[in-house]
């Protein structure tokens, strides 16, 4: 089974059914399939072959959904890239994974124009929101509308489920983002397990306010289309009241979120005025909900089932807490999902009994192929499993189990910060701080924050003669990092604490 074949099966079943609602417009399964097949033909016409990568640097929009299925239909692996990504990082990602094609929006031109100027791999850049591009010989740019006109012929590639379906970039502790390679088998396995335990149904209306570049957002579309449900795709949760109106109007049944989104939601005083009686399921992952959040959510939506879950991009999802366990062990993220085995190990890799604390190890067909062209980082995560010839995933997350084997998150093994449900490498932020003229030393830590989970706080020392305000430093970071990666607080200090060997010591920095 290939990832897009789920969607194609739903198209066969009900081409007239609404698959996607976006910006008030409704798109049927048949329409999306027509556009995706046509675009797949265009990608092939432009030279995209089986095994190539296709980067999708877009906001949540119809075009992004079409681009994802078109790339898969052309035999390529999708690389969804967050629309908040800045020039330097986009350049890095494009040069790292060397996609053959980039699909993007005209509104993001400031970012991709610069990145493309430093990239040789992209043979075609297809731009949504640009009416038509004058044909300039040698130019790689083409409007999406003009590209679609080229897609008269689509040839089914010879893709098998061992081929890559996606490369999703994630923050690495070294500071350089890593491309998580996921095969069709990996993604099909994850989508099947998750939609099974959630019990998604064809009459579900699934809200997606999470970016499609984030696997949690991407899978709302993948699983919704697999189930034959309707997905309501929103650009973001920036205007919660607007989203609530849409939820009421479309009678949304499934609301996937992260703690930050639920915080914003619960701050709306007029929330009880909105008729959300159709809502039957709320899911949370990326960061744990506090007990207080769980209580408030259940008070606000007593008719909806709440799923607490845990996952990582390297295998998509790991655990979920069966909703009936929420009263018994509210802070647990549950147990392994269907068709997967998980356990804890000590520092020597020995399996630990229930009631222990150790690193979570994951075994299953959803575990990634590795990090794109990063064998050393891959070897740190994928290690030989209990059965000969098999690799299992070391999550880097420390958990404890209770006597019955339910899992509770304890801490990261490395110093990765979790803010707004996103993983942020302190090194990546520090690298940007060091690039600011006059910065002598930088140390970035996560501090507790009621809305963000953790907020990013930077401590810097300056060379003599340089002075920056907190806001100056934050703005500099914002121009180079995705918004969620920029520090919320910056403190200029005279000196940073050091270890005996002269390294910056972060313990105690708050």
């Amino acid at each position, binding site marked *: 089974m290939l990832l897009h074949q789920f969607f194609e099966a739903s198209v066969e079943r009900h081409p007239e059914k609404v698959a996607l609602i976006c910006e008030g417009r409704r798109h049927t399964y048949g329409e999306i399939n027509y556009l995706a097949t046509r675009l797949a033909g265009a990608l092939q016409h432009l030279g995209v072959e089986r095994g190539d990568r296709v980067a999708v640097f877009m906001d949540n929009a119809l075009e992004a959904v079409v681009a994802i299925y078109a790339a898969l239909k052309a035999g390529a692996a999708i690389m969804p890239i967050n629309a908040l990504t800045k020039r330097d990082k986009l350049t890095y990602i494009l040069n790292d994974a060397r996609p053959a094609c980039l699909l993007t929006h005209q509104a993001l031109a*400031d*970012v991709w124009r610069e990145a493309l100027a430093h990239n040789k791999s992209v043979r075609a850049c297809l731009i949504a929101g640009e009416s038509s591009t004058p044909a300039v010989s040698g130019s790689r740019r083409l409007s999406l509308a003009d590209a679609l006109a080229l897609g008269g012929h689509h040839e089914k590639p010879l893709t098998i489920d061992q081929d890559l379906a996606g490369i999703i970039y994630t923050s690495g502790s070294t500071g350089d983002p890593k491309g998580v390679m996921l095969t069709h088998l990996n993604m099909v396995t994850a989508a099947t397990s998750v939609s099974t335990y959630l019990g998604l149904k064809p009459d579900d209306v699934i809200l997606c306010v999470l970016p499609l570049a984030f696997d949690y957002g991407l899978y709302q579309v993948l699983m919704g289309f697999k189930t034959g449900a309707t997905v309501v795709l929103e650009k973001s949760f920036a205007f919660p009241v607007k989203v609530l109106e849409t939820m009421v109007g479309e009678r949304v049944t499934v609301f996937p979120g992260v703690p930050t989104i639920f915080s914003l939601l619960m701050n709306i005083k007029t929330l009880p005025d909105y008729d959300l009686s159709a809502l039957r399921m709320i899911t949370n992952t990326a960061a744990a909900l506090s007990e207080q959040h769980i209580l408030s959510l259940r008070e606000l939506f007593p008719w909806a089932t709440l799923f607490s879950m845990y996952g990582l991009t390297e295998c998509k999802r790991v655990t979920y807490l069966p909703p009936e366990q929420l009263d018994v062990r509210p802070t647990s993220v549950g147990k392994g999902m269907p068709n997967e085995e998980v356990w804890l190990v000590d520092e020597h890799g020995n399996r630990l009994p229930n009631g222990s604390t150790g690193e979570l190890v994951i075994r299953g067909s959803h575990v990634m192929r590795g990090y794109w062209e990063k064998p050393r980082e891959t070897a740190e995560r994928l290690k030989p499993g209990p059965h000969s010839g098999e690799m299992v995933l070391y999550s880097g997350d420390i958990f404890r189990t209770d006597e019955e084997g339910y899992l509770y998150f304890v801490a990261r093994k490395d110093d990765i910060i979790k803010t707004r449900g996103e993983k942020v490498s302190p090194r990546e932020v520090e690298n940007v701080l060091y690039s600011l003229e006059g910065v002598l030393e930088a140390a970035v830590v996560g501090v507790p924050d009621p809305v963000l989970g953790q907020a990013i706080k930077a401590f810097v020392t300056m060379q003599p003669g340089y002075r920056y305000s907190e806001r100056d430093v934050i703005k500099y970071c914002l121009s180079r990092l995705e*918004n969620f990666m920029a520090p919320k607080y910056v403190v200029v200090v005279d000196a940073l604490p050091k270890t005996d060997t002269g390294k910056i010591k972060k313990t105690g920095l708050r």
Partner: protein
Amino acid sequence: MLDNFIMGGNADDLKDGDSFMERHIIDSTGFIELITFLEQSFGIRIEDEEMIPENLDSLNSIEQFISHKLKAVATAANK
């Protein structure tokens, strides 16, 4: 005024009517900070139902919204 909220990078040639969202000038949590900033700077209260793109998603819409709010405050004070 908005210097505090411009999320850098893409804002070099921001026009008064440009959507912050579309240009990725401000994101979800940025809007919350923007609302707090407007409330404190102008001594107004922004209600939940006023937190919509029509009021907040460009320099023009903010200007209109704030002057409308200030007029309402002044009218209420004169009564």
